[in-house]
């Protein structure tokens, strides 16, 4: 775990309400694994008080790591106004990332909107020949240009309103892809809004395919000190609650009590 002031290398809007930021921190960049996150102090004051958890979207070879974030509230709005050269305190890399499948296994990466962020870095390390990267948006206007943020594979898109790609939820794309792929070892990685994750977890459980999900909760510390980031674990787990910041943010879908989320 490293805490340091990282210089902003760039910070630009790349889609509706969505920004891409590069931060120079060779130590964090060197240590980060796909699915891990940082706690970012969006500015140097005491209101807003807490750090913001953000997935490491990608790591460059140049000591820079990248964030992909959506402006949803005050903290992310402040971030969106930060300019090149400013230094922001970053704490990371934090949590447990994705467990990588053995080569040859088919990977299905399923994102909902900004949920694409942690999956970008994953897409760079899983076997590209056996990977499908599926992303759902509400509408074409929201589409995040995946190749611009580091996905070096093509991405299939679904939109709720049919303005781009498949019309309908991304889970329909997932179904189609899994069916098309047929027999053989497969694994699903998912990140996105809760209803989507629930649907993915239900499907993979029905199919009996392993599934790893990256979860979001409110976080005060990000390092396991406050016990704030609890999610109920499924029966049979050792602990009644997982701590997303330490035990996750990536969980095997069957270790989470989806009914209580």
């Amino acid at each position, binding site marked *: 775990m490293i805490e340091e002031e990282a210089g902003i290398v760039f910070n630009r809007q790349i889609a509706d309400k969505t920004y891409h930021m590069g931060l120079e921190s060779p130590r964090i960049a060197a240590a980060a694994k796909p699915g891990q996150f940082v706690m970012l102090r969006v500015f140097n004051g*005491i209101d807003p008080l807490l750090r913001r958890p953000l997935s490491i979207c990608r790591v460059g070879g140049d000591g820079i790591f990248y964030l992909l974030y959506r402006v949803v509230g005050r903290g992310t709005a402040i971030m969106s106004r930060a300019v090149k050269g400013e230094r922001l305190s970053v704490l990371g890399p934090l949590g447990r990332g994705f467990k990588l499948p053995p080569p040859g296994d088919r990977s299905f990466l399923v994102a909902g909107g900004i949920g694409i962020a942690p999956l970008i870095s994953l897409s760079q390390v899983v076997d590209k020949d056996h990977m499908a990267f599926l992303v759902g948006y509400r509408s074409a206007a929201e589409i995040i240009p995946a190749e611009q943020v580091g996905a070096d594979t093509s991405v299939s898109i679904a939109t709720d309103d049919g303005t781009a790609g498949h019309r309908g939820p991304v889970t329909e794309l997932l179904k189609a892809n899994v069916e098309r792929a047929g027999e053989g070892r497969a694994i699903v990685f998912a990140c996105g809004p809760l209803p989507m994750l629930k649907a993915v977890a239900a499907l993979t459980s029905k199919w009996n395919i392993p599934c790893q999900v990256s979860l979001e909760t409110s976080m005060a510390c990000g*390092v396991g000190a406050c016990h704030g980031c609890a999610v109920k674990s499924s029966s049979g787990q050792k602990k009644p609650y997982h701590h997303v910041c330490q035990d996750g943010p990536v969980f095997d879908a069957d270790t989470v009590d989806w009914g209580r989320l």
Partner: protein
Amino acid sequence: MTEIQPDLKTSLGSLTLKNPVLTASGTFGYGQEFSSLVDPNLLGGIVVKGLSLKPRAGNRPPRTVETPCGMLNAIGLANMGVDAFVEKRLPLLRELDTVVIANIYGHTIDEYGTVAARLKGVEGISAIEVNISCPNVDGGGMAFGTDPDISARVTEQVLKKADKPVIVKLSPNVTDIRAVARAVERAGAEGISLINTLTGMAIDIETRLPRLANISGGLSGPAIRPVALHMVYQVVKAVRIPVIGIGGIMDYRDAPEFLIAGAKAVQVGTASFVNPRASLDIVEGLKAFCQGHGITAIDEIIGTMRLR
């Protein structure tokens, strides 16, 4: 301004701290979480997360929410239980060259005593801090700490079972903090720490749900500092035992306010979430503050508030 090394030592009754900065219970885990960033040996002490007799899962999430210059938490005192703590966490804490204080609580007066008894003879714990802010199950939900008599009885019960100095941590959600302070002093407490969190809540106006599943929670952070400082000042004047000031201390300029008001030491809570190194920064800042003001020992500023 000579570069003398100011003496930051302070004492809490029979306890001596190498400096007056401790980490507050529930905000620094079991001392290991931040250890790659903060060497706990450089701190005055560590107060561990509240320990109960049985392990506790804690409240349903969401458990935390940010508020103006503060945060609400309703962790629900999630913890591994006192026995697991002694077995699994204490061995590492024992290696430390600093004061380790066990924060404890119970659901009944008896249970407070039982937890204290489990720490009897246990090495590596320098003192017990008794959290009397938790809801009193027998007493209709109001916290033990809101009633001076019950506060005193909890204190007596812990003292009966404990073989270590007992510090009682007061709840600020009371009409007259001095009355509670005097009661626990009379009951035999060796020190008093305050404040615990103020009760508060927040509502999501879109969903009309409380932002915490528990509805209400404890407010901490800089927002509460003025309230904390005033209560510390009042209690210092009301009792003779040492007082530890807690509440919204973010940096080295905040800590001296509490010391000047008469606290012998301070605890740093929420600040560690914002800046994991906050406690250590405060130790270093206090040193520089003393150097800059020609103060040779931190003792020289304790309780030195002037009046106009």
